[in-house]
């Protein structure tokens, strides 16, 4: 059944697919995952702080983000971010941040809600005695978190954090709604241009599959290396 297929179109478009499309996808994934983990950890700490104001704000944020479809959030932020920027800087006109920045902010804020739940479970998995020992040595809240609780929570949760990052990697393909060209977008453009839809989409699927497989293999290797000796 493959006799009518022309995989030459794949070979000739490789520089474009990877040099532009995949670089974009990986950059967005890496930046949004880093920002998402940092902001997610802050949200988790707010939720566990026991301070009612912080607790409620974090809970509302997480539940709101988790109940909205990502595409909707991408649209909303694309239209809202210029106005939020204007409001924050006091500028009379909307601040144009560009599609990439808008996408990065959106993914960071959206993924933070998921990372927050993972980090919350991670923080709660650290026994109370560890906090007590840190405090007994004279550490304040910030030091106890930074030096004792979070490093352990992070190690314990590493598999889940990376699995969530793989989900993020796949979700970045939604940037097509902002006319940004990620890996899938690049494949799509070539497919339309040359009328080779089946070949290009087959190839794209194969690449996503290969990247995710390699990532989960890496996760296991990495986990063995950073695991806490018990």
């Amino acid at each position: 059944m493959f006799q009518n297929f022309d995989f030459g179109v794949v070979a000739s478009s490789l520089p474009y697919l990877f040099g532009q499309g995949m670089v974009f996808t990986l950059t967005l994934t890496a930046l949004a995952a880093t920002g998402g983990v940092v902001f997610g950890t802050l949200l988790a700490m707010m939720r566990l702080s026991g301070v009612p104001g912080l607790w409620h704000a974090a809970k509302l944020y997480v539940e709101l983000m988790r109940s909205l479809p990502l595409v909707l959030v991408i649209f909303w932020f694309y239209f809202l971010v210029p106005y939020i920027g204007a409001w924050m800087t006091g500028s009379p006109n909307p601040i144009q941040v560009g599609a990439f920045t808008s996408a990065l902010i959106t993914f960071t804020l959206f993924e933070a809600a998921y990372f927050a739940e993972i980090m919350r479970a991670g923080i709660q998995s650290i026994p109370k005695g560890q906090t007590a020992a840190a405090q007994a040595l004279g550490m304040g809240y910030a030091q106890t978190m930074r030096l004792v609780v979070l490093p352990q929570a992070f190690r314990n949760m590493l598999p889940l954090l990376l699995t969530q990052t793989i989900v993020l990697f796949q979700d970045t393909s939604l940037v097509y709604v902002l006319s940004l060209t990620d890996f899938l977008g690049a494949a799509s453009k070539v497919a339309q241009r040359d009328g080779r839809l089946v070949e290009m989409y087959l190839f794209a699927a194969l690449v996503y599959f290969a990247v995710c497989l390699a990532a989960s293999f890496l996760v296991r290797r990495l986990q063995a290396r950073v695991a806490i000796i018990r």
Partner: protein
Amino acid sequence: MTDSPITGSTATPAPAAAAQAAPSDSGLQPGTLIEPARQRAPGTAMIAIDAISKWYGDFRVLHECTTAVAKGEVVVVCGPSGSGKSTLIKCVNALEPFQKGQITVDGTKIADKATNLPKLRSRVGMVFQHFELFPHLSITDNLTIAQRKVLGRPKEEAHKRGLDLLARVGLSAHAKKFPGQLSGGQQQRVAIARALAMNPVVMLFDEPTSALDPEMVGEVLDVMVELAREGMTMMVVTHEMGFARKVADRVIFMDQGEIVEDAGKDDFFGKPRSERAQTFLSKILQH
């Protein structure tokens, strides 16, 4: 100035007594665990617990507890499970808040709003039942992290003090390992060294040997006995009556949140006055 390897900052020469104090029958290295300035000077209260009470909701955990620990004194706290021993000792370094009364540690009032609690805690050593070493850090990092991040000591100084103390508890060979690679007894000795690295004015122990396999209890008690003989002020929750007989100055017996007995060691073991203390003693001494 004498060159004392652990203190580094000793202004007065180490008394001969401290140098000969510890019989090294446990693989312990000779030397002192604390500096002479911290040694016994009876009469001054290091810890003064003044009529403290604590509730969990309606449940009264501590009721009007009053006692004091003098500088250089070793006080053993015992009593049945749930009597409030852990709670009392945790109140001393403000790990547990209390609703009534006052505790003064080396002149600092804990219940004062203005008191800097982390700073106070950095001067009070605490050893936990389950060791609570930081499992993600090497033994060396466990010994130095608080010295560096809390006391702001330079890396080399913290390192030197940590490794000196590790040698004193006989574990030099394990500096690069992680807590999970040590036995319970070894972990608890590291935990004691970690607390001592902060140059505490007093050491608190909450059942330091009760999570250990029987064959490891001795090695931990040996370190504690040496510490006591060097004159460290200690408050020790334990049911090891052998330890109490050997080094305690006083024994406190608690029941249902109250201090029922507070007596010199000889009085306590000679003739405990309350029936509850007698029953308790006869139970644990059967073992």
